[in-house]
């Protein structure tokens, strides 16, 4: 096993490895055997994994641009053909700030990040700083030569929501052929490729066919994503989100996908409440195998195209956000992690979850479900995720 890097934490350390690629949280004793010195972090009793915030993000999502010509109807970033694109020097400064924070991996997104001609150079710069770079793309603009340059990425995820009409139905944009061409070119170049699949009410019945399709295309991973009411996605969220029967069936579908497909199956943080409510797993296993719910402000930091920090990519400054209009400078990222009021709100909420989350056995991993969904559907983000089966049942239970 090759250890890439270690980082001391109050509980011990996080160990980044390859073969397998993983982040392993270890106790102080094992960390010490690995040569980690926790210093003041290790004073007092270990809190175990129950820490509200890690010493820095483990993962950062960096918007390389807000430019994208696709015009997907549900674009969470509200990207446009003329969206803002930060200068390369600004992106490099942000990467330096993230590296200084101890971040392990950086996922470039957008907009359509792959349209930046200098994206491979930025990824190489990230690697030179000790960061593991990945990127998500729709496949727009991919060529054989460009795919070769994308070998600098540890993995490229291509958005693929379903075969032909299914894809078009989810995105309002006929891009399946571009995604499939990009997957083929990247695979030919030797780049590990995953598929990002957003689940909507219409596409969910075709999920197993989609998984078989992207596996046949050569994808090594299927990343399932819950639809988010963010950006343009807010407009039609209520009619496109999974219905209650689909949410209730999610755990069984997930198990079937895992059993029948060779590719790795991943769920995003917002889907953990659906899995937890399915009875298909235990809180202990979810925790032991690092299946994460909302990690915004705990191990995750997002960096917008304008340089401002955010707890996650979907959190937008606007009518419901208290996100400060911080200057687009890299030093703000360090300040944001340690002092930002919105990140503090996330941490405070997760430390004091209301019922029915407070008594949920999955609370340590789930951390209350998706704040984006809660904020869009309810009056405040600081409330239980209303689509969680447990929360749904709680709301319908007669008051005692």
């Amino acid at each position: 096993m090759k250890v890439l890097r270690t980082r001391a934490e109050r509980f011990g350390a996080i160990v980044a490895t390859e073969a397998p690629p993983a982040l392993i949280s270890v106790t102080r004793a094992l960390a010490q055997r690995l040569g980690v010195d926790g210093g003041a972090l290790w004073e007092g009793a270990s809190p175990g994994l129950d820490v509200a915030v890690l010493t820095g993000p483990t993962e950062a999502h960096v918007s390389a641009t807000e430019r994208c010509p696709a015009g997907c109807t549900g674009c969470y970033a509200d990207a446009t053909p003329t969206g803002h694109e930060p200068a390369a020097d600004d992106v490099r400064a942000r990467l330096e700030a993230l590296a200084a924070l101890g971040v392990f991996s950086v996922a470039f997104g957008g907009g359509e990040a792959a349209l930046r001609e200098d994206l491979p150079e930025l990824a190489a710069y990230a690697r030179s700083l000790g960061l593991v770079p990945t990127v998500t793309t729709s496949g727009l603009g991919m060529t054989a030569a460009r795919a070769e340059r994308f070998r600098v990425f540890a993995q490229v995820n291509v958005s693929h929501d379903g075969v032909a009409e299914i894809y078009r139905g989810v995105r309002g944009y006929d891009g399946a052929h571009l995604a499939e061409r990009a997957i083929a070119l990247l695979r030919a170049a030797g780049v590990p490729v995953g598929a990002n699949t957003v689940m909507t009410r219409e596409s969910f019945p075709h999920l197993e066919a989609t998984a078989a399709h992207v596996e046949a295309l050569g994808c090594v991973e299927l990343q399932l994503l819950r639809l988010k009411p963010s950006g343009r996605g807010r407009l039609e969220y209520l009619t496109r989100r999974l219905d209650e029967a689909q949410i209730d069936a999610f755990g069984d579908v997930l198990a079937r996908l895992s059993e029948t497909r060779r590719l790795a199956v991943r769920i995003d943080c917002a889907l953990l409440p659906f899995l937890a409510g399915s009875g298909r797993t235990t809180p202990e296993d979810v925790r032991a195998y690092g299946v994460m719910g909302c990690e915004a402000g705990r191990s995750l930091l997002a960096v917008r195209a304008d340089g401002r920090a955010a707890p996650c990519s979907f959190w937008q400054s606007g009518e419901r956000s208290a996100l400060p209009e911080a200057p687009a400078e890299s030093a703000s990222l360090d300040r944001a992690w340690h002092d930002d009021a919105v990140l503090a709100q996330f941490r405070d909420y997760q430390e004091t979850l209301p019922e029915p989350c407070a008594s949920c056995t999955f609370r340590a991993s789930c951390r209350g479900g998706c704040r984006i969904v809660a904020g869009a559907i309810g009056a405040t983000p600081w409330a239980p995720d209303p689509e969680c089966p447990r929360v749904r049942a709680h709301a319908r239970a007669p008051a005692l």
Partner: protein
Amino acid sequence: MSDVADKVQAMTNVQPMTRATPDPDDVGVLSVHFGRSANCSSIGSVIDVLFVSGVVGTAVLASLAVLLGGRSDASGGVAEDDAASAPTTATSERTSEDEARSDGRA
């Protein structure tokens, strides 16, 4: 072993243990988050390991502890590792092809 267990073994590159496995708390691994987190908008987590039997699942954690700690006496077929010389930062530029090769995928 089930198909999922085979898949998890291939994915994690961890050999299943052949005898009773130690309690992960005793060997020092609190949790493991597999994969490269290649999504740009939300945290992704591999869930396949949740659907293998408890014994195999426990073996994954325990085997990782063994690999990290270099305790070759605790499981079959686990070689001594280079974890003891772990760098505090990784600065070498590697390509995805290099990583795929080290994963046994290329």
